[in-house]
C-alpha cells in the first residue's frame, strides 16, 4: 500500500476515534459560537454602519475569528499523547508504514473535522443573519482555508505532543494560539488599528488567513486576499509536516 493509502487508513482510524469521543467535539463548537455571539453583542451597536462591514452586521466581521478558533482546538494532539502513553504509538512505529503517513493520518482527520465544524458554524451563522458574499465558491474556499488552518495548528500541537509526550504540556501549548489570534485585525480592519498593533498584525501570519476568510464572508471573490491566506497555509503546513516527520524519524 502506498503512503497515501496508509495515510487514509490512519485517517479513518482517527475519525472513528473522534466520532466515538463526541464530548471532545462539543467545546470545539460551543466556545467559538459563544465568542461570536458575545463579541458581536458587545460591539455591534458601536460599529453599526461602518464601511468595512460592507453592509452586513458585525457578526459577519467576527465570523472568521470564530472559525479560526474552532479549528484551533488541536484534539488530535491529545489523542496522540494517549497513543504514546498507552503504547499504541510504538505499535504503529513498529510497522513499515511511512513516517509521513503516521503524521498525515491524524492531520487528515483534523482536516475533515475542521471542515465539518466550519460547515456547522457557517450554517448557524446564517441564522444570525450572516451572508457569505462570495457565493458557493466562497463557501468551499471558506471550508478549505479554515480546515487548512486546522491542519497547520494540529501539526503544531502534534509537535508539542511528540516532544513533551505530556497531555498537560500539549494542552498548555494550545494557549499559544490566543496571542496569535489577538495580534490580528480580529476586532477591526488592519488600517484602523494603532501603529504598533498594525505592525504586529502585519508580522503575524494568522492575519493573512483571517483577512482571506473575511474577504470571503464580506466581499465577492478577492483573489489577492484569498491567495495570501492559502499561501500562508501552504507554507506553514509544509513546515509543520516536515518537522513532524523529522520528529518521528528521530523519536527514541
Amino acid at each position, binding site marked *: 500500500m502506498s503512503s497515501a493509502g496508509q495515510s487514509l487508513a490512519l485517517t479513518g482510524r482517527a475519525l*472513528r476515534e473522534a466520532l*466515538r469521543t463526541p464530548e471532545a467535539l462539543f467545546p470545539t463548537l460551543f466556545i467559538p459560537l459563544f465568542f461570536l455571539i458575545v463579541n458581536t453583542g458587545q460591539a455591534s451597536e458601536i460599529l453599526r454602519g461602518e464601511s468595512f462591514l460592507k453592509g452586513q452586521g458585525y457578526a459577519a466581521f467576527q465570523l472568521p475569528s470564530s472559525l479560526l478558533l474552532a479549528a484551533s482546538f488541536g484534539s488530535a494532539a491529545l489523542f496522540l499523547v494517549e497513543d504514546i502513553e498507552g503504547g499504541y504509538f510504538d505499535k504503529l512505529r513498529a510497522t513499515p508504514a511511512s513516517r509521513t503517513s503516521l503524521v498525515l493520518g491524524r492531520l487528515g482527520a483534523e482536516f475533515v473535522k475542521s471542515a465539518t465544524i466550519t460547515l456547522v458554524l457557517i450554517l448557524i451563522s446564517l441564522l444570525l443573519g450572516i451572508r457569505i458574499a462570495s457565493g458557493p465558491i466562497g463557501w468551499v474556499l471558506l471550508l478549505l482555508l479554515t480546515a487548512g488552518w486546522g491542519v497547520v495548528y494540529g501539526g503544531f500541537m502534534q509537535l508539542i505532543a511528540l516532544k513533551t509526550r505530556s497531555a498537560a504540556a500539549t494542552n498548555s501549548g494550545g494557549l499559544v494560539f490566543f496571542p496569535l489570534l489577538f495580534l490580528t485585525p480580529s476586532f477591526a480592519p488592519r488600517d484602523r488599528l494603532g501603529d504598533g498593533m498594525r505592525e504586529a498584525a502585519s508580522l503575524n501570519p494568522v492575519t493573512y488567513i483571517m483577512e482571506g476568510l473575511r474577504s470571503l464572508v464580506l466581499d465577492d471573490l478577492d483573489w489577492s486576499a484569498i491567495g495570501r491566506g492559502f499561501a500562508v497555509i501552504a507554507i506553514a503546513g509544509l513546515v509543520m509536516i516536515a518537522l513532524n516527520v523529522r520528529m518521528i524519524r528521530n523519536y527514541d
Partner: protein
Amino acid sequence: MTYAVEAESLVKHYSSRKETVEAVRGVDLQVAEGEVFGFLGPNGAGKSTTVRMLTTLLSITSGTARVAGVDVSVEPDRARRKIGVALQEAGLDGRQTGRETLILQARLFDMPQASAVDRAQVLLELVDLVESGDRRVKGYSGGMKRRLDLATALVHQPEVLFLDEPTTGLDPASRLVVWDEVRRINEQGTTVFLTTQYLEEADALCNRLAIIDGGRIVLEGTPQQLKTDLRDRRGLDADPTLDEVFLDATGRTRERAAGDVQEVLA
C-alpha cells in the same frame, strides 16, 4: 550461518545535560532460527532497551543489530516487515474494536482491504476473540488485550516475534493461554525472542536464554546447561532451580526471614 537475531557490541546511552546513563553496555547475542529465546534480567537491567533497539523503536548508540538478516539501523523498514512486536504494555487503541485494530494493522503492512478483513478473521479465531471482535478494546479484560496484542504482532506472519514480558499482570489461566500461543507460533517456524521476569516461564518455554544485568549479558545457555553448571560449581546434590541460577548470575541472594522471601543485594 544466518541468525534470526544477531547483535554485536550493542550499546545504548541516554544523555541529558546532567549525565549519561549507560542502559546497555555492549550486548552480544545470537539467536538461531526457530528458537524460543529467553531474555531475563532484573528491573532496569536493559531488557526492554535491548528489545526496543532490535525492533527499530530506539536508536542504537553503537554496535550493530540484525534481525532476519537485516540490519535494523540501515534498513529499518525492511526489518519491520520481518518482525512482530508485542511490547510490555499491550499497545492498543481502546476506542477501536478488536477487528478494526487487526484490519488497520494489516493495512499498514500493505495488505489490500479484502485480505486484511480475511486475515483479521483468521487471527480473531486464532486467539479466541471472535465473539468479542466487534466490541471496543477498552471493554476487554487484561488477558483479552494481551491476546489481541499478540494477534496484531502476527498479522504479517513475521519471521521473528518479539514478546516483551507478555504475561506480566495476567492471571495464571491467561498466562497459560499465552504460553500455549507462544508454543504454537514457534511450532509454525517463527523465532520467538521473549523477555520475562518469570523464571518458570523461561523454564517452560525457552530453548535457550540469556541473563542481562547492568546492561551486560552475564550468563547464556540452555536452561539445563545453566542449572548443571551451577550444580557442578557449587557441588550441589540436585539441580538448582532457574531462580537460583538467576540469583547467582545477577549477584543477588535470597534470605528467608519469618517465612518471607526477601531479595537483597549481595
